[in-house]
């Protein structure tokens, strides 16, 4: 605190005046947080739209026998007009399908959910919750956002690359990705830039959390959200460089014709591929999953943190087992580094390794069970307020429950033999990330919106949005589990080309309709977001009667955040303390 104020001349309390320095190239963590928020929501919209197109294709993959190109329906005519070559008569070319598939995954994870959970909420809320005037390195923070922005542009630009966007899946398995058209080079460069941005952020988060806490804010008094962000930042810092290196090697394979991932005597285009060879396709998978498994927890931990905050506030009681929760987050973080090869049981890696990774994978489920148990038991004895943020936070629990449970037969090698690379996998990780993480992040937005903009979002519209999100989501993702159980493989542009998929094809129609309803269901949210900026119910400092420090500064907080230097006297969730005058006892309220 002292240090930060010592340097206050640089950024502490001086309000920048011109629009461009205040809102565009801002070094204020709150502005950067909102920049991340808006950008990641835009990318989520883009990624979702791509999936709608793919779901359209999967619902009706081929023309029916009586198909008449003269009588296209409204949607087919529109698709035919928009992409005459990629979607003739509204039927998707496999190339376009693979491009959208790879880009949907990449956008949703690296440009959507991670920036939203980590960068947007982390940036906005973390310094407030620990009582800091800003991040430790405000300029690095700004650089992180703009680096991410450039990375996003590079990735999106790949659609205009010769041969189109990357089409080797978001996992970019070599050697397919090495021989793929130019879009893959954009993907690799874009990823290197985005990873760099994440590293800037991770360093900043760790230093801020460890060095910038207000007086009295010991680590043991930090809200669970701060702990979640700290563990996430460590994961990013340690796991992302591995993928960065891996991506650079793949880039060299593509542009400098090295053979890190190219084996000897590979035949491509009817001739022997002109490379020395000697590389290993499996190497890429190890490097990729060494990041991409911790990445799952990067998607998830901020959601745990947000749900914990919302549940504590809206049950009006302390969280159950604060230490158990924090300990579990840390254990999850550590174990997440030793489970990566459960994505690779059938990859051709040494088969005996599977036993080790089955064991570590089963082990990591224990702290996850502990987190869910604590959050569930936190409800017991509470006085639950069912406002919109709370609905989203509560829905997270069973939805993530399905995501976690369906991980069991996948992490268990014998059953993975059947389920690997099927829609069961897709169903599983979407339950973790969409009805799981993303729903929690939505709750986080409803929860912190009054802090960000000084007004509450409309409750009625919020509840409409909630039900129009949670119900269609289950109709989208649950049938995927059924299809996968039957053995339908993922990444098929025309699943009906394979007769073993026909008995479960019907579900795809239901999924397509549900996905469209889900899309429509987001309209109340978008409207609510903009409408409430001007017309929402005015929010004071602490609209939810909460205890943590972000509610001790004005809504929205000014540059420098706190009007007086906060001091912390107690733990983060002192609700309904016997004998206290109100049912909440803020951390900074002197006894």
């Amino acid at each position, binding site marked *: 605190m002292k240090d930060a104020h010592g340097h206050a001349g640089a950024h502490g309390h001086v309000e920048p005046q011109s629009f461009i320095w205040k809102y565009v190239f801002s070094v204020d963590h709150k502005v950067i947080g909102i920049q991340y928020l808006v950008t990641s929501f835009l990318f989520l919209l883009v990624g979702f739209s791509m999936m709608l197109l793919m779901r359209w294709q999967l619902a009706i993959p081929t023309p029916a026998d009586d198909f008449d190109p003269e009588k296209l329906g409204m949607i087919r005519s529109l698709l035919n007009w928009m992409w005459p070559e990629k979607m003739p008569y509204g039927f998707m070319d496999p190339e376009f399908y693979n491009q959208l598939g790879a880009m949907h995954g990449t956008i949703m994870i690296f440009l959507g959910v991670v920036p939203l959970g980590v960068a947007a909420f982390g940036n906005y809320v973390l310094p407030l919750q620990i009582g800091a005037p800003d991040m430790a390195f405000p300029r690095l923070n700004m650089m992180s956002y703009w680096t991410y922005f450039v990375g996003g542009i590079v990735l999106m630009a790949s659609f205009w690359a010769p041969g189109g966007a990357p089409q*080797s899946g978001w996992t970019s398995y070599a050697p397919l990705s090495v021989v793929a058209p130019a879009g893959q080079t954009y993907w690799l460069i874009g990823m290197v830039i985005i990873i760099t941005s994440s590293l800037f952020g991770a360093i900043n988060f760790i230093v801020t959390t460890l060095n910038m806490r207000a007086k009295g804010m010991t680590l043991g008094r930090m809200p669970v959200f701060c702990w979640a962000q700290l563990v996430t930042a460590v994961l990013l810092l340690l796991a992302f460089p591995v993928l960065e290196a891996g991506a650079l090697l793949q880039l060299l394979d593509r542009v400098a014709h090295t053979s890190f991932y190219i084996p000897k005597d590979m035949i491509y285009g009817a001739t022997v591929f002109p490379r020395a060879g000697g590389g290993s396709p499996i190497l890429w998978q190890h490097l990729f999953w060494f990041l991409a498994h911790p990445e799952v927890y990067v998607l998830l931990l901020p959601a745990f943190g947000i749900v914990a905050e919302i549940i504590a506030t809206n049950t*009006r009681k302390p969280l159950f087992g604060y230490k158990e929760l924090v300990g579990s987050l840390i254990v999850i973080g550590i174990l997440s580094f030793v489970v990566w090869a459960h994505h690779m049981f*059938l990859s051709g890696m040494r088969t005996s390794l599977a036993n080790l990774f089955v064991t570590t994978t089963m082990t990591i489920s224990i702290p996850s069970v502990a987190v869910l148990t604590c959050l569930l038991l936190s409800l017991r004895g509470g006085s639950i307020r069912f406002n919109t943020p709370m609905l989203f936070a509560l829905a997270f629990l069973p939805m993530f429950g*399905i995501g976690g449970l369906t991980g069991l037969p996948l992490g268990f090698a*014998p059953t993975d033999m059947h389920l690997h*690379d099927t829609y069961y996998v897709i169903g599983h990780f979407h339950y973790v990330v969409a009805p799981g993480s993303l729903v929690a992040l939505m709750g986080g937005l409803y929860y912190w919106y009054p802090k960000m903009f000084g007004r509450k979002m409309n409750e009625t519209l919020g509840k409409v949005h909630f039900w129009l999100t949670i119900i269609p989501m289950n109709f989208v993702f649950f049938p995927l589990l059924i299809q996968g159980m039957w053995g339908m493989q993922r990444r*098929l542009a025309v699943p009906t080309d394979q007769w*073993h998929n026909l008995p479960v094809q019907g579900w795809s129609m239901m999924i397509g309709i549900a996905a469209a309803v889900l899309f429509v269901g987001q309209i109340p949210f978008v409207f609510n977001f903009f409408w409430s900026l001007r017309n929402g119910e005015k929010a004071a400092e602490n609209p939810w009667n909460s205890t943590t420090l972000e509610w001790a500064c004005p809504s929205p907080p000014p540059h420098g955040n706190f009007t007086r230097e906060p001091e912390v006297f107690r733990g983060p969730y002192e609700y309904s303390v016997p004998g206290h005058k109100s049912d909440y006892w803020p951390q900074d309220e002197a006894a």
Partner: protein
Amino acid sequence: MSQDWGYQWGLPTAASSYASDIDWLMWLLHAVMIFIFVAWGIFFVYCLFRYRARDGERAVYHQAGESASFIPDGLVLAFEIWLILAFGIPLWAAIKQETPPPDESMTVNLVAQQFAWNFQYPGPDGKFGRRNVALVTAENPIGLDPDDPASKDDVVTINNLNVPNGKPTILRMTSKDVIHSFQVTEFRNKQDVVPGLETMLWFEPTVAGKYEIGCAQLCGLGHTKMVGNVFVQSQDEFDGWQKEQLAEKLGTTGTADARTVTPAADSRS
């Protein structure tokens, strides 16, 4: 085709010796998952109802039972350890780490490519002819070396794998170009087919019939169309088929197999 579209639940037919073990495990896991979810869900809904905000009632500050909360963790851990020791390690070892004795089984080489499955049978001499990448052409997809005496009686088929019922088939698999994955859902097994590496998959069919081979690893534009058939026949039928193939091969010149199906090649990649 559209009349087949439906809403099937569950698992497809089990048609290999170990499929029923996998299915049993699958049902066990799902039964436990559903039990956990329902038990947990009942408590969740009860809490939402019982502890909803009501006038004049305050939430409870002190909460007991911190150590009791480790009971579910412990139960799950115990279940998982039992699962690993009783099924995970032995079943995985039996299917993926060990192969049936070669003299009681049939070995076939699989050379995958964009977008076809090429199978090489060793023929009556039981020896596989040498393969050489330099000899790969459209007519000789696996680059079989005609100068190798062992290759004379080798049968190469494209996208069709004929196997005897009740006898293990061992596939020694590799890929010419990118990663593919051999999947037959009725056998409950799959395995990536990787360039520069030999992977192994074995199965012992138990039900005669025709099954579909799908590619389970994205391999390019023709990925969807990279399909093949497994024909599970009685030993007599299989022997007859093999004789027929061999006669056809020796009757014609060169290594081309008249019965083969042209791969669904896509020139773009």
